């Protein structure tokens, strides 16, 4: 590698104060206490709520880091279980930082990086993910060439050949999964309707590297990152729009400092278009919806209001809030690559979120993240619930109308 993506690689040892200063107040276990209206919805740490031992909450993971650093313990299978059941949803840090100025999420992320760097980390179940990325440059292990077909299918510019107004970074899930094609189509059409000259990279678009970041394989992530940034810079685009929340957080938190284009999530772009009048939602919609804040979009990038403004712009639609919303959002169950190894655990979390939708009398959960959509869908199945999941762009397009 010629150079690191990050000029100075952060190490866990730099956060020694954080895990040493944890005072075990346990506010990382749940939500902002001033905003809890029901006992059940205090709980917000998915792994802690399920597995219950200290090690599965941020407060215990701080001790995992400290005990390893002090050579009091060695890595065991349960250590790895505690490390990799974390969904990296950031709920702990959301509560802890204002109080203690500690970064428990960062400690957990760096602990995973240490695990990979020192060779004791990663589970056998992670191997297929790495293999797919090595062999196919995308998370799903599909041929990259299929992405080129999207250029024609979506009727967009090939950004690697022509300059475009905005570059749409589609992401692996939206590129390949048939059940997500509808949302992808809606995104492109809405962007064009708003006046954007949309281009995509096609097969030149690699995985953003989010799965690698979440697994802690920093080097491999940076390899993808570097490559993506070079290709994006080469297009000359000033704005790159992400569809997936995981891509959004990677772009916003990792790529942004090294990339010429400014990253923005599609909900931010569309919300601005609606505000400016470039898009208008005219057709009345029915139903009661609840916006599910994806962890990566909400807590990481603080994109809370834009999706809500989109839904509020749709006439006839009633919007309710989850009990755990905005900074208190509950993970869908798909974060941190935990569900890849522990699918039943992921499903339990998803089912809890669906229960919450039922509790607030929402008939549809709306979101803008393919991981959330997939997990919530499985949660609906698991609960045999009547609640539906919709992508926000699909919902908006129905109201905007036209093709």
């Amino acid at each position, binding site marked *: 590698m010629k150079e690191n993506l990050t000029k100075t690689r952060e190490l866990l040892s730099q956060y*020694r104060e954080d895990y040493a200063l944890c*005072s075990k107040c346990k506010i990382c276990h749940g939500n902002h206490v001033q905003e809890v*209206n029901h006992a059940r919805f205090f709980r917000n740490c998915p792994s802690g709520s399920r*597995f219950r031992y200290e090690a599965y909450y941020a407060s215990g993971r701080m*001790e995992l880091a400290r*005990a390893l650093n002090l050579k009091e*313990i*060695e890595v065991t299978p349960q250590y790895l279980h505690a490390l990799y059941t974390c969904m990296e949803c950031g709920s702990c840090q959301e509560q802890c930082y204002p109080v203690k100025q500690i970064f428990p999420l960062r400690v957990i992320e760096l602990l995973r990086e240490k695990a990979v760097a020192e060779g004791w980390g990663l589970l056998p179940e992670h191997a297929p993910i790495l293999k797919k990325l*090595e062999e196919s440059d995308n998370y799903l292990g599909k041929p990259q060439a299929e992405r080129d077909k999207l250029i024609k299918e979506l009727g967009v510019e090939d950004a690697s050949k022509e300059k475009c107004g905005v570059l749409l970074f589609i992401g692996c899930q939206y590129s390949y999964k048939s059940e997500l094609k509808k949302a992808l189509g809606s995104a492109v059409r809405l962007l064009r309707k708003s006046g954007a000259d949309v281009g995509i990279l096609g097969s030149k678009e690699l995985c953003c590297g989010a799965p690698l970041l979440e697994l802690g394989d920093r080097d491999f992530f940076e390899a*993808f990152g570097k490559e993506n940034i070079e290709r994006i810079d080469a297009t000359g685009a000033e704005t790159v729009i992400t569809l997936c929340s995981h891509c959004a957080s990677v772009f916003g938190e990792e790529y942004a400092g090294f990339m010429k284009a400014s990253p923005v999530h599609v909900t931010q772009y569309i919300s601005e278009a609606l505000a400016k009048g470039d898009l208008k939602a005219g057709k009345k919609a029915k139903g009661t919806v609840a916006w599910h804040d994806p962890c990566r979009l909400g807590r990481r990038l603080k994109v809370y209001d834009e999706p809500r403004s989109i839904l509020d712009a749709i006439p006839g639609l009633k919007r309710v809030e989850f009990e755990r919303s905005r900074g208190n959002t509950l993970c869908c169950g798909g974060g941190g690559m935990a569900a890849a190894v522990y699918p039943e655990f992921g499903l339990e979390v998803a089912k809890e979120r669906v229960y919450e939708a039922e509790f607030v009398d929402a008939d549809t959960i709306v979101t803008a993240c393919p991981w959330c959509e997939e997990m919530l869908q499985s949660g609906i199945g698991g609960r045999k619930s009547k609640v539906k999941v919709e992508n926000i762009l699909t919902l908006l397009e129905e109201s905007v109308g036209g093709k």
Partner: protein
Amino acid sequence: MKRPQALPRSAYLKDMDNRRVLRRPKQMEAEPTHNLPENVEKALVELKAALGDEWATADDAVTCGYARDQGFKHCIYPDIIVLPGSTEDVAAVFRIANKYLIDVMPYGTGCNTVGLTIPLYGGIIMDGRRMDKILALDKDNMYARVQPGVNYCMLQAEALKLGLRVANPSAPATVSVLSNHLFCNINLMASKFGFGMDNVIEAQVVLPTGEVLEVGPRASGMDPAQVAGFGPDMSNLLRFAMGTLGYVTEMTIRLYSAPAVDLEFYPAYPDDDLTDLIEALYRLAHDNQAREIAHLQNTFYGIFMGDNNKETEAFVDAVPRNNIMAHFGGATEEEAHIKLEYARAQVQEVSDKFFFVEPEMMRDMVGGKLHLDRWNKYFRETVRVQRVRGSFIIGALVNSLDNFYAIEKQMRKVVTDQIGTTHGIFRPDDASAYFQPYHMGRMAYLEFDLYTHQDDKDDFLRAYMGFFRAFFLAQGMGSIAAAGTASLLKGLPGLDLLLPLGQPEFARIMSLAAAVKQTVDPNDICNHRWDYDTGTSNKISMF
């Protein structure tokens, strides 16, 4: 994309791996009889069978999470962690522990700040967080029955739905309601409504023998009609027993009405001289109309208000030195106002130096940044205490309000003498302090906190020394700790000989507590601290 090969580790790092070896302190007793490794192994097998495979473990990844807290007790690893799901599970744990002589440490939600859930000799930690149900919540008769895993946030949320509230302490809302009533439940409603044992109606306790003891009305199948059960009142037997007498699996506590109208006022006093302020507190407490009442020094106020250390510091400098906070409730707006205005007149009568801080004034003082909802809601409902710098040592004292004037002054002096001053936000000579009246001003609670960085040995030791110097000074001036320590001090070498000479009454409660302990815990497994044969502890530990 080719996955990059990991860079070879440097020779230095390799060498470090070789130099460093596992160094976890395990048992440190000579000739131990409890927690023998072979017995721990056998116990674990039976615990897994009894509770479910998932709910008992000896894995280091789990035990390390229970070995420390933010206090000054050094780390001690337990051997096993169990998560019982029911009273029957708790009883099974004790039976197995007795069989193999494994110590058991009761643990609620683990928010203790002084090492009280860290077992002296290892053994089992019994974590109550799976038992997290609110078993009953009675709107008309104002009580709640909870398990150990229910925290204040959860109970308060449910109680508020019914127009009720629990007397919540100035501790994180993640604290277990049940555990907190066992130690200490210092809450801002204590002047009018009481605290701790005043609010406990009944409990279910699993004794270390595995037997289930019920105390209070439930022992005789009676309704929890707010008063002690039949005959000798044992309803608070385990309060300040420090986990030595068993594990409380259910507790019924009093709830209070949230009034239709709630008004508050904040008289502020600019000077350091507390004479007038104490007089004002007496008046308000005697009047008994304030539902919540406390004094807050600007240092104590700041930590509740700021979002981070910098904001806290700014807040401390901006607000008046001494502040009273009081809430008045009424069935009507008019009634609440009458109470408030009368109280205002009472305070003004004491001294014209008092001025009343209105929200707009506060906003001006802190330059436009004010978390008004936090200002109101923290003290009224749940409290999430912000503590800066890492950890804090709490001085929790009880004495009469009048006496605290001199005590607080003296404590500041000795802390400065011992620790000196620093440029930090919370200077040792300006430790955050607050008082509150208890029981209509009949006595008062003083909290005097020193802040320290628990990972900085020098800072920590300085604070530790200063704290104890101040604490013992306060005791010498007639204060007592706001928590009964007999169960903790029992067994300190030499104490059994000296106590009857100097403190015969304290020796008596210590003896009785010891006798009760020996009765209910014949194998001495529950928070095992001192040896029955010798009467002393093999380890010296305050907590």
